């Protein structure tokens, strides 16, 4: 009898928990996204009512075509991909190379370099002097200048995560490989790199969210429309009609701007979730 009561109370409790979660999920996630998607399908007049209702007139093709043609979307997409992919690759490779040395050394000079790198995770980038440095290098307003700046300010997170990860692993395998005559780069390429994959994956997830959505630095460093990344293109498109937001078009642009990351998430969802919950962030 008491066992049955206990079982019943557990079932009741889990039903209550799931109902509460579902209600919260509905208000917190589902309704905002429903609102976003459904209004991107409406005509301008329909969308200005800002309701959750089904569209009375479907205007999908027109809205999305306007965004693709007038919203600078395709140009923004090409710019964003052109910038994000090489930057991400460079940051992950150069960051993990440095992290290996930092993790396996006690030299004071290297410790100093390590802490300087870690500090860049905490301290926000000083944007005006960055423009000055880029001007001196002749790179201000160029994609490569922006990419180098992104790399320099984002590498700290890779170094932080990977150094912590390597320190937890004894150096025996690397030493054995050195005894067998492997070169430094060979050990990095065939032993260290495969070993740190979990930490690099977490870093890659955080960095792709961070670089794809970067608006602050790209607004300062790439303000010209031809070179604008997607967030800046979205901002310029939405601000073009300051006082009468055409919500249907703004929402269509919002969806198209975020769709690449959301698609990646659909593909890697399980690995992203397990990678982040295994505590790689807290170290």
């Amino acid at each position: 009898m008491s066992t049955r009561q206990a079982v019943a109370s557990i079932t009741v409790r889990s039903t209550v928990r799931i109902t509460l979660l579902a209600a919260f999920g509905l208000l917190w996630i589902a309704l905002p996204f429903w609102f976003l998607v459904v209004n991107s399908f409406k005509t301008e007049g329909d969308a200005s009512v800002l309701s959750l209702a089904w569209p009375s007139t479907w205007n999908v093709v027109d809205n999305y075509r306007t965004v693709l043609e007038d919203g600078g979307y395709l140009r923004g997409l090409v710019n964003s991909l052109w910038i994000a992919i090489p930057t991400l690759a460079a940051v992950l490779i150069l960051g993990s190379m440095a992290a290996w040395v930092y993790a396996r050394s006690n030299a004071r000079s290297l410790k100093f370099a390590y802490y300087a790198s870690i500090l860049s995770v905490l301290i926000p980038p000083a944007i005006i002097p960055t423009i000055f440095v880029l001007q001196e290098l002749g790179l201000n307003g160029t994609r490569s200048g922006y990419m180098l700046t992104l790399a320099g300010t984002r590498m700290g997170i890779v170094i932080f995560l990977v150094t912590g990860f390597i320190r937890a692993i004894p150096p025996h395998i690397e030493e054995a490989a050195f005894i067998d005559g492997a070169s430094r780069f060979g050990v990095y390429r065939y032993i260290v790199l495969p070993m740190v994959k979990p930490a690099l994956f977490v870093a890659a997830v955080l960095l792709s969210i961070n670089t794809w959505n970067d608006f602050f630095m790209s607004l300062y460093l790439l303000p010209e429309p031809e070179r604008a990344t997607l967030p800046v293109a979205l901002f310029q498109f939405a601000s073009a009609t300051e006082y009468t937001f055409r919500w249907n078009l703004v929402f269509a642009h919002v969806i198209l701007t975020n769709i690449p990351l959301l698609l990646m998430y659909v593909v890697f969802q399980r690995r992203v979730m397990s990678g982040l919950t295994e505590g790689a962030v807290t170290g």
Partner: protein
Amino acid sequence: MNIQTDNRPGTDVEPPPQATPASPQSWSSDLGATLRRLSWGPWGRIGFVVPGLILIILFFVLPFTFGSIFAFVDWTSYREELRWAGFDNFRLIGELGVLSHAVKVTAIFAFAVMVIQNFVSLSLAVALQKSSKINSVFRTLFFIPVLMSPLAAGYIWSAILRPEGPLNQLISIVVPGEFDYAWLGHETSALLSVAAIESWKWSGLVTLVYIAGLNGVPTSVLEAAKIDGASAWQRFWRVKFPLMAPAFTFNVVVSLVGSLSAFDVIMSTTNGGPGNATSVLNVALYQQYSQGFFGTSSAISLVVTLLVLCTAVPLVAWLRRREVSM
């Protein structure tokens, strides 16, 4: 041996391994050190560090150093030459009322984000801690806003929060009468609303960090507490919460420090308004910059940096001291 070698990398010679005298006691550490020195050499290490370090020096350390100088330089787009200005930039933005107001708004914003984000995420983490099919569906769902660009999140929510928008439509169903409060139109509610939007955007990630922290609490300790008759409430606050302190430290620091440099969400919702009620430091910085006042914007940038350092360092020290070591 190892440390000694490392301190003088320039003097390293690469002797053959047999040349190392191997006394029986220190044999293994000597061999390890020799091997390391052999394999790295003085330049090998540097070759691995330098490419990344150059980028960090050029685009983080150098701007950081210059920034501290530019804050004291009279530099506008209206004049060619730069002039030493002492504290004039700070005095100028101080007299305009920009500085103290922006610092106050930023501090309130950051504190509100920290409270909302950690409250929502900790509650979600407790509800979703166990790995089950339904929980992983919820975790996946609550993570979606993390992927959204903060700018986009701002556009979505500024529509939702409009007087005629869906939030007030929903409230009107529950509350009798027409409810048409302008959430982003009043000073206090605008500031709290943008803080809530910022929290909405990040709480999925914070939740995962808390789940990792909760999963790190050993079950044996929890079972012992249960046998001793501790209630679920006591088990959470007296056992789990102290033992997951590193996750709490991390989340509090990251949410506070991150929102001290908030920009995107505010640009796409209120643009600093109404009036300048949501004009945080980075928004004020952009306003100064777009008017061509580079000296004063450098001064604001330096204030952001100082604010971050003055928040993070004591906070980490204080929270670390409260952490229980296992």
